[in-house]
């Protein structure tokens, strides 16, 4: 799994590529915690490069979302497709967290 970060106004865009599974999920939560520690508590996660996600990935997202919310910030998602979009839907995460088709739409609401 790889991360690319870009500041967009008050928000940070975190682009994630690769796989978010049992073995890599701790890296995602650690990356979000590092962003929060650096003062970036409004995060837009771009998942257009994510190939695969499992429940361990969802749990790491839930952990990051709760932490950012407790700090007065928030997390949103964009660019979901294929299995990633399907897993977000089946698990109810599309109702739980803000999900947008594009990065621009996510940033407009971040």
């Amino acid at each position, binding site marked *: 799994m790889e991360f690319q970060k870009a500041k967009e106004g008050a928000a940070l865009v975190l682009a994630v590529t690769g796989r978010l*599974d*049992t*073995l890599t999920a701790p890296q995602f939560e650690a990356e979000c915690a590092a962003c929060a520690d650096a003062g970036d508590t409004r995060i837009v996660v771009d998942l257009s490069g994510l190939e*695969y996600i*499992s*429940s*361990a990935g*969802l*749990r790491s997202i*839930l*952990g990051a*979302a*709760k932490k950012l*919310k407790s700090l007065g910030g928030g997390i949103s998602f964009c660019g979901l497709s*294929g*299995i990633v979009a*399907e*897993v977000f839907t*089946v*698990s*109810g995460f599309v*109702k*739980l*967290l803000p999900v947008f088709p594009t990065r621009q739409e996510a940033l407009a609401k971040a």
Partner: protein
Amino acid sequence: MSAPLRLPAREESLPELQRLAVEAAEQAGLNEATRQHVELVLEETLVNIIRHAYPADATDRPVELACHTSPGELTLVVADHGRPFDPMSEDADTIDLAANLDADLDSRAPGGLGLILIRGMSRASYERRDDANVLTLRFPAGD
């Protein structure tokens, strides 16, 4: 059918077991979406076994995967020798999964997601056979 792959029920065994299943899914001619279901359902099944089937300090903790292919269909059989656990039974649910699906961020429990994915993306059946948990996961091409 190939011989079952038997490995320790540990996280480091996940890539090899998932690779075997994905190769079998390709041989069966399943499309990409169904191949991803195979990979995901297997990961969720194995993680349950890794975390819960054996005592944490058990050194003998095998998990076995057998892949059966026929044109347009893949069947995975996952077996372990740990404590009885039927992931298809509602007794397996320690929380109300349906209510949790609608919960908001503050009340959403982290557990139960794997079971939702297993049940939603495969045709699964469970059997306790002698001292083994045997979970049969079917993936027809059309699913």
